[in-house]
């Protein structure tokens, strides 16, 4: 049985204060990870601070720096935001692959990365876009690259009292196509067995992979073969991905199948973004 105090915040400062002062305080965005996790005994929260209506966190805008996705913006809102669709469709694909429409009505991108699952579907696209995480606390603000934000399964680089204010997809945007390819057991309302993001940047690519290590990872071996050595045989390049990942066996798939699927999806991603 869940039992906790519920605090509704309409003010970013207050939210930071609650986080800093309380014990076992959790931020509640969509709650699609949090409530499920609490019910399953993963978190024991004394207080939930609801940030859904904090105005500073509802920001969804594009400016000189890039696209800012506030922490209370839902995935459904992000998916249809024109600057995302037009400039970084790979991120829209990642967002769209999360759960179901009704889940995405609540779920947020910030919640997705703060939950820090290596299988988070928005993470791999964000890695390929060199996204920045804007962090806020009573002390002030700081930013860090997404790759530093993920610290381990369920672990982020946030310190006590800090929250994610927004995620920035910086300019310049990539030139060229990007795809997010997700393998799952049913292909519908299911977590990724593996997720592969391949983003073309002019003549180069960036590749990131989810659910194959403690955090999402970049496939540097493959990137190097393509970007530096000019490898044109994508099957050969994709094979190198085995060096970049260390998947495990769980209920969603075996280690062996994950190795195989990553290789297949990286090759397909290369074909789809760089052309066969």
């Amino acid at each position, binding site marked *: *049985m869940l*039992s906790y105090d519920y605090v509704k915040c309409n003010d970013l400062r207050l939210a930071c204060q609650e986080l800093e002062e309380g014990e076992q305080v959790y931020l509640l965005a969509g709650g699609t990870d949090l409530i*499920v996790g609490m019910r399953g005994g993963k978190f024991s929260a004394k207080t939930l601070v609801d940030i859904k209506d904090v105005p500073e966190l509802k920001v969804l805008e594009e400016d000189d720096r890039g696209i800012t996705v506030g922490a209370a913006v839902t995935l459904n809102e992000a998916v249809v935001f024109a600057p995302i669709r037009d400039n970084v469709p790979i991120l829209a694909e990642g967002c769209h692959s999360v759960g*179901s429409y009704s889940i995405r009505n609540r779920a947020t991108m910030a919640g997705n990365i703060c939950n820090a699952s290596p299988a988070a579907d928005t993470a791999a696209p964000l890695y390929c876009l060199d996204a920045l995480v804007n962090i806020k606390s009573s002390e002030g603000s700081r930013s860090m690259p997404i790759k530093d934000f993920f610290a381990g399964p369920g672990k982020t680089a946030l310190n006590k009292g800090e929250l994610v204010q927004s995620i920035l997809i910086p300019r310049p945007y990539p030139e060229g196509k990007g795809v997010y390819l997700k*393998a799952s*057991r*049913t*292909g*519908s*309302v*299911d*977590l990724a*067995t593996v997720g592969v993001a391949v983003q073309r940047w002019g003549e180069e690519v960036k590749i990131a992979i989810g659910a194959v290590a403690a955090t999402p990872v970049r496939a540097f071996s493959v990137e190097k073969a393509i970007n530096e050595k000019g490898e044109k045989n994508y099957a050969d390049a994709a094979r190198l991905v085995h060096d970049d990942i260390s998947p495990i066996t769980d*209920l*969603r*798939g*075996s280690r062996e*199948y994950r190795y*195989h*699927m990553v290789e*297949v999806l990286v090759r397909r991603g290369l074909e789809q973004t760089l052309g066969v």
Partner: protein
Amino acid sequence: MADLKTVGTSVPRKDAIEKVTGSAEFIEDRYMGPMLYAKMKKSTVAHGKIKNIDTTRALKHPGVKAVLTGKEYPNRIGLYLIDRTFLAVDKVRFWGEPVAVVAAVTEKAAAEAVDLIEVEYEELPGVFDPREGMKPDAPIIHEDLANYEIVPIFYPEKGTNIANHFKVRKGDIDKGFAEADKIIERDYYVPQMQHVPIETHKAAVQWSLDGKLTVWSTAQSPNVVRQLLAKSLDMPMHKIRVISSYIGGGFGCKAGASIEGLLVPIAQKFPGHIVRIVFNREEDMQGTFTRQALYSKLKTGVKKDGRITALQYEMVWDGGAYTEYGVNIVRAAGYSSTGAYDIPNVKTDSYCVYTNNSIGGPVRGFGMCEMQWGIERQLEEIARELGMDPLEVRLINGMKKGSTTASGQVIHDLDYDKCLKVVADKIGWGKKEESRDGKYRGKGIAGLVKCPAQPSNAASSAMIRINEDGTAHVMIGATEMGQGMLTAISQIASEALHIPVDKIDIKVPDTDFTPYEWQSVGSRITYTCGTSVKRAAEDALGQIYRVAADLLETPQEDLSFDGKKVFSAKNPDLTATIREVADSCKKCTGEGIAGPIIGRGSFVPTNMTNLDPETGQGNPGLFYCFGATGVEVEVDPETGVVKILQLACSIDAGKAVNPQLCTAQLHGGTIMGLSTALYEEVRFDKGIMLNRNFTDYKIATIDNTPHMDSFIVETPETNGPYGARGIGEQPMIGVAPAIANAVSDALGVDFNTFPLTPERVWQAIKNKK
């Protein structure tokens, strides 16, 4: 069947408006009175002795009213084999078995108190594979098996884990194999699966101050709950009242009695209170019936021309920790063990084996999905060995009028050929599609058959009350769990009674007021309850004619009833409204003729027999329902993902009482079959259920649901009401083998098990290389 007015039309569901508006009442919707909430303490070991249960801290917890352990309530219960207690006594036999129950004034206090109960176990070696469990040196799970009470149509083996060994010996198996040109032999495995109804198990119990027990339950059979409680509590039946709400899906998991008894001893301590338990999803997945896993060996002898001469089937079922119900699934699979095929020489051994896995029990199909998986896969292998068309092999061996089943029962009313041919035609059988974009295409077909697996004396009864204004109430004991029973049954009543269906009211059962029904299981209600309702309607109609004849002073034979008035065919002046007849009819002189009209009808099968203990020969089937599934798939050989391009299903319904509801059952069953074929599998690690909720127990969603073509074949069932037979479970049975046959066709690799998850398909392709 000329001139049917209501039967055969798609009248809207009786419960449609309630369900669509959300006003339909389920157990949790009811305010019943002062409540106590129950929660279970569950075993943390799969097999062990209970050394000690310390409830002191739990009892002291604020809000807690009672804590009960098995010692205080040791009576056994069970439908066929009385092997189960509501709470573990002395020993636990599966992980998650309830060892204590707490009742408190809030659900939260109950849950907290559960954590304060300390249980000490001495762990015992477990049995997790029934094949191991059959070995002489296996740990024994029920030491007392030999002393358990049992319905004498089951055959436990003393001193072992075998709770039932069912045998079929038909013809001469040695001769059959000697005649064969080829013998095909293979092992198959079907894993456990779960029903996942949208509503979990729920029950509430009240002990009144004058000693009457009232039970609200999601059970599929209020009468069986009453019967089992009466027995285990040693109470007379008139002191027990079981009330059924609407049920949010059953699929077998709510058959028999499951959780109601857990609450009774608490209710007895707090008369007037209502003690309620609501299972959460994990409790439902792990603590209630699971479809039994099946390990089987199938050997078939076949002539060059495709004719099967002999079939030898060994089935080892994972009965789980208690097999009170499972023993009958094992029996049903045994006596049906040739599937939809007429095979002269058969030797079957079907074993129900105790293990320390979750309790096995009924699931849509009742053993047929598991058993016919082997049959329908092996037919594919036979066809390949002989270089024949798999459809042809099915048509050659398929049952026809006058065929005999494995138990030697002669079948009359069927058109299995037609069932196969309509789906084959629909999917363009015989036309091989080329592979595209590196993906392979294949087609598969599978047949199916099932009869209700019910005791030969499983009965139904019905009452029809005619109101003063000529409207009517139909009273029955069947439950409505989404299948549409209320609608189909009122159509049968309407047809026989001539009263329009919208003038007929029908409700879910309450054992204090509604007449006896065995169980809403086995796809039998339309037939059995339907027959009793038809008889009750005919009885009421007969009374209407008798009364009207008296009133009009004319012979009964001349009268007709059109739902509004009774009139004489010979003399148009002689007519009486139904009101005049039904409202305590009296003559113009004021002399009374008859009081209110009440029709009654009951049914018990007369065509079923016991089976010979050594040969399994006899008539176990009330009726046999045939059908088929045809599938076209596209497989991505790199990822193993199977895409369904075409899905066609057919069922010989005899007569579709309500074609729309019938089609809905075809769709629902087919999707459930598809879901097991591609996704569903309960995973255990030494008895611990690993995927107990929807994060990792995946079922098909609407995204995974392809377009379906369904065909209702109508070969009338001689003794069914208006020719109807039950079709609820059947559509599921052929889907898994049809899909596997199609994937095999696409890839040239074989599958002896399912689900065909992407990973399993990929693995199979890899192993072939």
